[in-house]
């Protein structure tokens, strides 16, 4: 059973420290809810674990079992069994979804998959997600609705069969029915023993996928690690109790409005 071990992780972006000593473990068979206010480092943690080049690890380590992945390239981490479903999956014009999926499946396997087997797999996975098969033959995420992009992320998860999957707000942009479909798929994958680390702001998703543990990230650190009653408590009362009970001052999110100018896409600016 594989375990992802994060030890005293410090991370900077453009000289600013975002993660200030994160320590936690996630094992296969566990579903961990990652909670916390906006701008406190949740997405950063997931991106750093996946090896996003924008983030600089200044100290600490990430291990998958005995394998030190701290310095590994992103594709090596994927091959080791990590997966990240992105909050805003990029649109890549001209790259056909199924070509990409097949290249990805082949990259993460020792032996190349046959065309027949691949299409069988793809067909099953799209059916499971109730996706129209033609999405697979279109340009990667180009012109996909928000919900289609998110399903496409889960489709990739199904095909790549990672040990630990990280989901960054997979429920945003999904309607009620789509959340149910995605949650059902996640639930099935949990039963197969896959590990999950899941960010969401809504208790609804967690009600459906039934996490086994919850951790709370404040000011770039994990301040609480406990059972799933935390999810309910935060959903009902917010993060205020952290201040009153733990004496931790919650830093306000710094809105860096000046970098967004008229004429640029605000969404794209903020996710950079």
């Amino acid at each position, binding site marked *: 059973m594989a375990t992802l071990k994060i030890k005293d992780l410090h991370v900077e972006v453009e000289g600013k420290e975002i993660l200030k000593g994160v320590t936690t473990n996630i094992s296969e068979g566990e579903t961990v809810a990652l909670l916390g206010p906006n701008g406190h480092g949740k997405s950063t943690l997931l991106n750093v674990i996946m090896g996003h080049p924008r983030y600089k690890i200044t100290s600490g380590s990430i291990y998958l079992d005995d394998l030190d992945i701290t310095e590994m390239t992103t594709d090596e981490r994927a091959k080791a069994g990590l997966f990240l479903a992105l909050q805003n999956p990029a649109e890549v014009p001209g790259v056909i979804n199924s070509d*990409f999926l097949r290249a*990805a499946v082949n990259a993460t396997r020792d032996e190349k998959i046959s065309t027949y087997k691949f299409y069988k797999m793809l067909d099953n996975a799209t059916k499971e997600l109730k996706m129209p098969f033609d999405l697979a033959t279109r340009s990667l995420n180009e012109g996909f609705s928000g919900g289609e992009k998110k399903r496409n992320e889960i489709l990739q998860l199904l095909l790549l069969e990672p040990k630990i999957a990280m989901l960054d707000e997979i429920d945003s942009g999904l309607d009620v029915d789509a959340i149910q479909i995605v949650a059902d798929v996640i639930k099935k994958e949990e039963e197969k023993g896959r590990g999950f680390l899941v960010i969401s702001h809504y208790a609804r998703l967690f009600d459906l996928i039934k996490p086994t543990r919850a951790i709370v990230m404040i000011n770039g650190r994990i301040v609480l690690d406990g059972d799933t009653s935390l999810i309910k408590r935060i959903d009902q009362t917010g993060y205020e109790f952290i201040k009153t009970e733990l004496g931790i001052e919650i830093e306000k999110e710094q809105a860096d409005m000046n970098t967004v100018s008229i004429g640029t896409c605000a969404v794209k600016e903020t996710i950079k």
Partner: protein
Amino acid sequence: MKKIDVVTDLQYDCLDSSDSLSFEVTQNKQVSVYLKNIEEVEKINFEVKDNSTLFLSIFAQKIVKNINFTANVGENARIIVYFADFSVERNHLNASINLNKDNAECEWHLASLSSQKDDKQIAVSIYHNSPNTHGRIDNYGVCKDNSTLVFSGISHIEKGCHQSTSHQNAKIVVFDDGCKAIAKPILKIDENDIEASHAAVVGKVSDEHIFYLTSRGLSIDEAKLLITLGYLKPILKGFNEETASEIDSLIEGRL
């Protein structure tokens, strides 16, 4: 000048032909023309008469010196061009499409690969000379080594050509420091009641795209290749299977 009447689907080899060619598609026809060895000519003209549709595919793989391409499109007529530019050393192409009558339409797709010391200057212009005419230009390029790749052209909507639409797209992905890539799609609009847009993108392969693809197990080189092919491969759909696979293997070989 040599004149050719197009009455049915045609494959035309410009080798050992005249320096100057003029094709005419008569009224009420729907035909496709595939031009080979376009490098051998200097002037090519297409007359697409009323109510006709011309699917034109062009594949260049040698030195293109100076080509002047013109087309005149009539009422309810369409010209759809797929130009696969895998010429070497040099390609100076000047294309002008005139939409002369009501509901004339032009769709122009070009994919260009420039590498080594290639010098490629591609200008594609659409002139809207009548109301309710529709133009679209999509130029996609990949620029490598010490090559030069320039996409320019004008979408010109004359005064009085109301209800016309014109869109231009020029995108170049740049690989090396020695590359010179310019995209300058120009709009000249003399009428208010129209719809027009232009977009220009010149840059390296996006880091976000690379991260996305590598996070699924592809190496950086595989990811770059896949993204770059995404600029060039869509042109294949304008060609028959045989030519498409020829172009396809050429792309894979050169990248």
